[in-house]
Every structure is written in C-alpha cells, then in structure tokens.
C-alpha cells in the first residue's frame, strides 16, 4: 500500500509540479508544496499505523457543549 500511495503522489509530481517549475509559478508551487507534503506525511503516518486525531472530534465536543447531549 505504501508503494502504491507513493506512486500516486509521484505521478502528480510529474504531471503538476514540473509544469509549475517550467512556468516559474513560485507562489503556486509553494502552496502546492505545503499541501502536498502535508498530505504525504499524513499518508505515511496512516500507513505506519499512527492513529491521527479526527478534526471532527473537537467539533462534536463543541456542539455537545453548546446544545447538550446530541445522542
């Protein structure tokens, strides 16, 4: 699975990043790079079995603190 995911990410490096560098779109490249690396790190961590915290957990807690028990 790790290899499969890496291949998918590598595919997008070739199809997207190379044209950005050739066209010297540095700002887009920076934004692209930050999001891309974040996604890849999350993918690696998930593949290594690290339990990442769900972003919806604090939202659920916030809603419960405002409207009470929602169940």
């Amino acid at each position, binding site marked *: 699975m790790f290899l499969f995911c890496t291949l998918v990410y590598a595919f997008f490096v070739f199809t997207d990043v190379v044209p950005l560098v050739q066209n010297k779109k540095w*700002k887009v490249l920076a934004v692209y790079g930050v999001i891309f690396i974040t996604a890849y790190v999350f993918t690696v961590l998930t593949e290594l079995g690290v339990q990442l915290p769900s972003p919806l957990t604090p939202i659920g807690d916030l809603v419960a603190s405002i409207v009470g028990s929602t169940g």
Partner: protein
Amino acid sequence: MNKEVIPNRQAGAVMTMFLMGSTLILGVGFRAGQDVWLVIIIAGAAVAPFLAIYARILALFPEQNLYQILNTLFGPVAGRVLSLLYIWYAFSLGAMVMRNFQEFINIVSFPETPIFVPIMMMGLVCIWAVKEGIEVLGRWSQLMFIFLVVIIAVVIALSMEDADIDNMRPVAYSGFGAIMRSTFNVFSFPMAETVLFMTVLRMDRERNNPHYIFFMGVLIGLIVILMVSVRNLLVLGADLTENVYFPPYVAVTIINIGNFLQRIEVTVSVVFLFSGFVKISICLMSACMGIDNLLGLGGYRQIVAPVGLLLMITTCFIYKNIMEMSDFAFNVYSYYAFPFQVVLPVAVWIAAEVRARRALNASES
C-alpha cells in the same frame, strides 16, 4: 480570470445529483419512523426561503462566486476569514461523503480491502473531473442524471411487490418533537448543503437564472429522495429502516421477482457511485476555488491534486468507524452545518441588499 459558466439545466442536474449523493445510501429522516415522507416535505418547504436567499445573493453579484462576494462585501480581512470557514466546510463535507462511500464499499462488497484503495480510486476520478472544470461536470451530470432516474424508477417499481402500505400508518405517530428534529436533520443534510453551489457557480446575466437552478435542482432532488425514502419505509418498515446503516441497499436486496429477477442491489451502488462522485467533486472544487481566491493563485485547477490528496487521506481518519460516522451524521452534523447554511448566508444577504440599495440611491441622486 477564467469565467466558468454552465447553462441552467446542467447546473440543475449537478445540484440534483449533489443532493442524491450520500443521501440515497445513508437514508434520511428515519428517526421520524413512518412519518419520514412528512419530514421530507416539511424540510423542503423550510429550505425554500434559504434557496431564495442563496439565489438572490448570486443574482446581486453576477459573474462572482461566494468567495469573491465575501471579499467585496466584508473587505479583504473579514472576507478571507469567512472564506476560510467555507473552505473548511467544503473540505470536511467532501471528506465525510468520501468516507460514506468507503464504508459502504467495505461493508457491502470488499470487507478485506484496505480502506485507502476505494478512497484512492474515487478520489483520483474526482481530481480529474475537477481539473476539467464545472463545464465537464455539468455535461456529464446532465447525461447521467437521466440514466440514474431511470434506474431509481425501475428499482422502485420492482420493489412494490414487497411494499406494505400499513408501514406508513398511523400518521404523525412519532410525535411533533421527533418530526421537527428529523426535519432539522433533513434540512441540513442534504437540502441546505446546496449552499456550496454559491461557491462554485458564477451567474451569467444573459444565460443564467439562479432561482431556476436552485429551486428546480432541489425540487427534483427532493422528489427522488422522497420516492426512495417512501419505498424504504414501505418495504422495510420504520423499525428496520432505523436499525440498518444503508436502508436503500437492504430494501433492494429483498427484490425477488419470480426467482429470476434478484440480486440487483448493484443498481444502488451505481447510483451512489455516480451521485457521490458529483458531490465529492463539488466539495473539492469549492475548497480549491476558495484557496485560489484566498491566496490569489490565478486559477484553482493548479492546486486540485494536492487538495484532493489531502482530502483523500483526511477521509481515512475523519471517523474511527461506521458507528462514529453515523453518530456524527445524524446527531452532530445539523448543528455543525447550521452556521454555514443559515447564519452566514443570511448575514451575507443582508449586507448584499444594503450595498445594492446604497448603489441604487447613489445612482439616482
């Protein structure tokens, strides 16, 4: 800037398929028991004023999407903060829908398959579609919409052999409180989720009528959802509908015409696959357009791939399991979505009307 405009009918078809999205697989309003049909009708009526508000906002600012409108109305700082909120909403909704898709695939078809495989397959197609733009999505939706409606109609007709009209009686038995709570759920999921269309559609003065798009798209979607929900109720009954995770799928598994026509539940999967694809694509497109507008990148298509990949991996850890998914969807989501679907659009609408009046007065004087 590339102005992407699609005709009314295509936009309406996209909206209808967006509404069908995960609704047709998770089911809606089943907490009201046999009054689910009543809940869907009331929710449809309740969402109408908000659809009018969404359409009015787009009509007041032709050729602008919500992100641009927020910048125009509230200035660069507050506008960007509000844009950030909508980017998050679109992104989180996309991840939630994709997780619905993944759970469905894993539970009914491929329990041993790693969860990232169906997510990756679906996600890559969505990335491709969003890169092609709303025009391609519009044309595709207009074509596939007819196909899906035919499938749904045929399957409902075949289900009628197992239907029992007594499952709908007595009316209003679940009580006023349960009906209102379920109405609130159906209002937020899926009716008012159409708020995201404000972020992806730009209205052309000549070609587009935003009121037609919103009302026609939601009306057709509402009819489809109503028909499927009533079918589920008639075939399964209120108790069973409430106790299974994918009621439409279970309802279709029962079909057996003369021991010959059976095992046609793949049709449910096809409908969900196609409509879920549209919903995820719209969410992804909305998030990318928001980021593009927020950071001034000069085109959202350049960042579709990394945002799509981030959405796909977020899908893996957004819920721990299907119980958590179901709990969030039916107990928390309505409250979470309320500010995005009601509070902020109303605030934007008031600000837009004030600005329009001032502009009118200034031009008259």
